[in-house]
């Protein structure tokens, strides 16, 4: 079974790690009372979000340049579903940080990357727009959660039920093919 390139595999797992981390951070920090710690965590959350956005752009560019390896044979509906889920995953991995950036602008906090690179404010400050974007950010996150769950379950099904070696294409290490 042909595997993804090293860069694609590295980016996949790095982005996965960052998304899980910053999702948990997001859930935690929003519940905190207003404090210096809260501001520090928001700052990290935004830095990670911007990083995910940039890494996903690199992944997309790389993917266009180097096509993914062919998947193992499977039913047509599975190929279609997999295609759709991957498109949506890429879309949401860009839309979620973008909605956060927009929300930050509308709420009157400019987004900073690693505390030194300021991102331009995309919207003027407005309380109602900020609140609407907070809801948007949340719903996009729920959608991303659902898709990640589907993605994960499908990978597990291929690994443990179909035993077709699909996961090996994306598994890190030299002997990724575990079937």
């Amino acid at each position, binding site marked *: 079974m042909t595997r993804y390139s090293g860069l694609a595999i590295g980016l996949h797992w790095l982005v996965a790690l960052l998304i899980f981390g910053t999702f948990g951070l997001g859930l935690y920090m929003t519940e905190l009372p*207003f*404090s*210096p*710690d809260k*501001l*520090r965590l*928001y*700052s990290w959350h935004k830095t990670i979000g911007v990083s995910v956005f940039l890494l996903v752009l690199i992944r997309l560019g790389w993917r266009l340049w180097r096509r993914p390896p062919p998947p193992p044979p499977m039913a047509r509906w599975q190929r279609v579903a997999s295609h759709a889920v991957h498109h949506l995953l890429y879309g949401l991995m860009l839309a979620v940080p973008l909605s956060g950036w927009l929300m930050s602008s509308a*709420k*009157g*906090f*400019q987004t*900073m990357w690693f*505390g*030194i690179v*300021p991102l331009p404010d995309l919207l003027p*400050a407005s*309380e109602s727009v900020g609140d609407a974007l907070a809801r948007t950010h949340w719903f996009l996150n729920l959608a991303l959660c659902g898709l990640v769950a589907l993605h994960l379950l499908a990978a597990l099904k291929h690994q443990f039920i179909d035993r077709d070696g699909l996961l090996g294409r994306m598994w890190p290490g030299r002997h990724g093919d575990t079937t």
Partner: protein
Amino acid sequence: MNTRIFFIAALLAAPLPASAEAYTAVDVEQSRIAFGFRQMGVSMQGRFGSFRAELDFDPARPESASATLEIELESFDAGVRDLNREVHGSQWFDTANHPVARFVSSSVTPLGESRYELAGDLTLKGTTRPLRTPVTVSIADGQVLFEGEFVLERLDYDIGTGAWRDTRVVANEVQVRFSLAALQVPE
């Protein structure tokens, strides 16, 4: 000779009547007190929506001008709900005990070309400290405009105590910009 000395002494001793030219009516609607500071490296801007001022400014005798300014600290508006609420607390302005910031001028020094240095005392959260700021004065259409900008260090007045003392989270330096408009009181 004696009468001449007496005349000068009388002139110096007598309270100077406000000249007809003096500007004493501050136009709050046309005035603005704004501030800027950095929070997590991000520039934040805001203003105080509610303040009042007493003023006596005679363009013929600018050195004898005086001003008193009172700012309602509850009217802090940085455009962010959480922040606007937070600054009322005891670690920040403690508006329940210190609702007003008060500036009382003590001297005006000409710097040339309609620029002056205004000195006075600022009382904020129970602390009174001397303050100096440059002021540019411009007069047009019967209105005088005083504009200036200075840096205030918030920790001098215990603004943001406890965990908020960390100036990497909220910078110590606060840029204050003011623009006060005043009119002559109609006779």
